């Protein structure tokens, strides 16, 4: 019963954020600000993490392909598959649940506990449109971040293998081997769903929180827990639907 109530309120929140919009001039500014805060400022950490994880994936694959009869190009192939299918969209989204999610929860939550949301409401402004809508729109650019993650991870794998003495032609052949556009489609479908989850689940935790500064911290933590659980479960469902 308790969770049903939350789920209902969550969907009503999303719906309400599209109603009674603020002036377009104001919204445009807010959207650009959120694109900067949520998308652009996430690119450095995403690139660094992807680069090293990509390198580790290729090293570990190489370790398991020690049989001299197996072609070295399989390393490139396996790295590409794990990066595109799982690592870039899902793993990165969990990281983003920590970075972007806790930022969203704490910024909206602080506005709630200091009555700034009430102040918006008193002025006759729809706080959900003002606060949540620009974040949803900004995160529609999230696939762009994941694309960067895919490229840097594969590049990280490539560099690691070059250092390890694997001929670069073999790795590149592997990257191009048996390419399935459908896998990329599946990956981007996931990414868009994760983007919507990343914008709305933390916003929900911030918007409906009660209490003071201490509770803002607690809300950020539970927001991270819930966002990552939902991402993992949605990942499972989408994979069942699209890949099996």
């Amino acid at each position, binding site marked *: 019963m308790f969770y049903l109530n939350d789920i209902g309120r969550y969907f009503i929140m999303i719906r309400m954020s599209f109603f009674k919009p*603020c002036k377009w001039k104001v919204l445009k500014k807010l959207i650009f600000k959120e694109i900067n805060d949520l998308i652009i400022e996430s690119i450095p950490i995403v690139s660094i993490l992807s680069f090293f994880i990509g390198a580790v994936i290729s090293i570990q694959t190489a370790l398991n392909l020690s049989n001299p009869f197996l072609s070295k190009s399989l390393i490139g192939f396996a790295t590409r598959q794990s990066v595109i299918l799982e690592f870039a969209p899902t793993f990165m989204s969990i990281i983003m649940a920590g970075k972007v999610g806790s930022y969203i929860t704490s910024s909206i939550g602080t506005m709630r506990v200091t*009555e*700034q949301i*009430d*102040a918006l409401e*008193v*002025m*006759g*402004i729809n706080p959900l449109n003002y606060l949540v809508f620009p974040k949803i729109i900004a995160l529609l650019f999230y696939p762009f971040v994941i694309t960067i993650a895919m490229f840097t991870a594969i590049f990280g794998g490539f560099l690691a293998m070059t250092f390890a003495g694997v001929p670069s032609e073999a790795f590149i052949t592997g990257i191009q081997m048996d390419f399935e556009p459908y896998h990329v489609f599946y990956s981007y479908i996931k990414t868009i769903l994760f983007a919507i989850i990343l914008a709305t689940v933390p916003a929900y935790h911030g918007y409906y929180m009660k209490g003071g500064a201490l509770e803002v911290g607690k809300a950020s933590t539970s927001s991270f827990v819930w966002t990552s659980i939902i991402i993992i479960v949605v990942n499972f469902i989408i994979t069942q639907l699209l890949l099996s």
Partner: protein
Amino acid sequence: MIEVKGLVKSFDGNMILNNISTEFVQGKTNLIIGQSGSGKTVLIKCLLGLHSPDDGEIVYDGVSNRNMTQAEKTLLRREMGMVFQGSALFDSMSVLENVMFPLKMLTKKHNDEIVQRAVDAIKRVELKKAKEKLPSELSGGMQKRVAIARAIVMNPKYLFCDEPNSGLDPKTAIVIDNLIQEITKEYNITTVINSHDMNSVMEIGEKIVFLENGIKNWEGTNKEIFSTKNKSITDFVYSSELLKKVKKFL
């Protein structure tokens, strides 16, 4: 003038406001007093339309809150200004941007005019020098002034203040109280102020409503409050040792 008739509000089965009837007079500072938790904030939020009452009626200059359409509610909101207990300034915006905010969001005025009106409001609360500062760089009293400027920049008919001098030293508190009273007279606003501060009661209590456990226990003026025989009122008024001593000399 705001008339409140038989207002009832409860949360999760707890009756917070129990059949409150009173009126708040135009051009005067109307005070709602009572202990913490007595329902003052809930009453103000009902007047603002942030809480919808379970029963009863609120009449704003002849316009009842019953059967109001959403559009009418929005229009009524624009005639209201609110000073929140913690000021509720937008912390990413400067003083000037905070005061300009309602004009920018809700009117179609030209930017020059918006800036002019915001600067006028900031001048009115005597903060001209601080207009480029961020709220975090201001003292509590200055933040309250910004909140007042933001509340009056749309020329409201109704001004609500939730404990406007909580967290301020006694001297600043009286300055803020007096500022609110001056503005009330100047623009002939219906002002409703929540307070549990006896200094405010004495300074600006032109009309006082005393709440106790969600019931209106007493109402009157700051002249009457010291002579009433009402036990709850005298307990509240003379709660401090200092005032008890003063009472002996009266």
